[in-house]
């Protein structure tokens, strides 16, 4: 027997990244703009998605992929009740969605008829950050009551973001949340990140997000 060292130097997430790339191509072929929405549990992902659907559904055809750790259909039902084609992925306790789950879900949506696919990731600030899904953008819904230290404690998730939404701004008078401290932390990780402070409850701040997204979807069609 002889011992031999075999050099590899391969990223552990390569397999996932390759499937993510295929997802991206499939959606580009169908002229679909896709958003991966991440957040901690209770930050308001579902409310944010429902607000977004409400403001866009007259102009765009939207599909939703819901990631859940258990076989509950509450979120998918809410979305389906809003009249959107929705696919639910039960991750069976897994803490994140990965590219292969999206690749299995995409054929269940009428992609050729859709303009926008919204993916609701599992509520978690750690694991989803590691798995690219192949969406056009990655978006995080942070929220005021979670505290202003989150970028400092969960740096990874802020690194890969294209858009940051800070939800529940209506609660600012009631909780300690130093917006400057929060945004400086974000700046350290992701300089110049596009950010929208919103309140899904009052609707405040939703309009600029919707305008931004509309322009993005239209621009992506030209590109």
């Amino acid at each position, binding site marked *: 027997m002889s011992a031999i060292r075999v*050099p590899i130097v*391969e990223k552990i997430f390569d397999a996932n990244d390759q499937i993510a790339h295929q997802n991206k191509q499939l959606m580009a072929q169908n002229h679909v703009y896709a958003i991966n929405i991440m957040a901690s549990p209770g930050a308001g992902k579902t409310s944010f998605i429902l607000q977004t659907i409400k403001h866009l559904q007259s102009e765009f055809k939207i599909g939703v992929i819901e990631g859940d750790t258990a076989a509950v259909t509450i979120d998918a039902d809410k979305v389906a009740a809003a009249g959107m084609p929705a696919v639910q992925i039960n991750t069976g306790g897994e803490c994140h969605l990965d590219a292969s789950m999206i690749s299995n879900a995409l054929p269940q949506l009428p992609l050729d008829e859709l303009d926008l696919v919204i993916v609701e990731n599992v509520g978690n600030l750690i694991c989803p950050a590691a798995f690219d899904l192949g969406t056009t953008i990655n978006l995080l819904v942070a929220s005021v009551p979670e505290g202003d230290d989150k970028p400092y404690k969960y740096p990874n998730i802020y690194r890969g973001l294209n858009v940051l939404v800070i939800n529940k701004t209506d609660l600012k008078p009631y909780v300690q949340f130093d917006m400057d401290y929060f945004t400086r932390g974000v700046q350290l990780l992701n300089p110049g990140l596009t950010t929208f402070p919103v309140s899904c409850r009052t609707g405040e701040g939703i309009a600029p997000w919707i305008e931004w997204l509309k322009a993005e979807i239209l621009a992506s069609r030209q590109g």
Partner: protein
Amino acid sequence: MHELSVTESILSIASEYAQKAEAKKVTDIHLVIGRLSSIVDDSVQFYWDFVAEDSICRGAKLHFERIPAMLKCQDCDFTYEITERLTPCPKCGGYNTAIVSGEEFYLDSIEIEKEEVKNP
């Protein structure tokens, strides 16, 4: 928590290269993990024995090389290490920084054993 799928990926990459190299068994696996990548060594190690049990990698020892998290201030060019928490530049207080290292996560190499090929 995603260490299980991570461990499965490590096994699949290591096994693929071991087969290509016509290994009889894999004895060591060298991983490089940046301190900013949210991977817990102990957790990977914990899953490893179960995941690798029926494979060519059974019994292989995992080695973790940790890469420090280094930030470089874009205002004063000072480079500093983050150990506990993310902090602004300790020299000038600036927030205009770039991450230099610490986000690595890859399989660097494996060590294998092969049957001796007898020379004619």
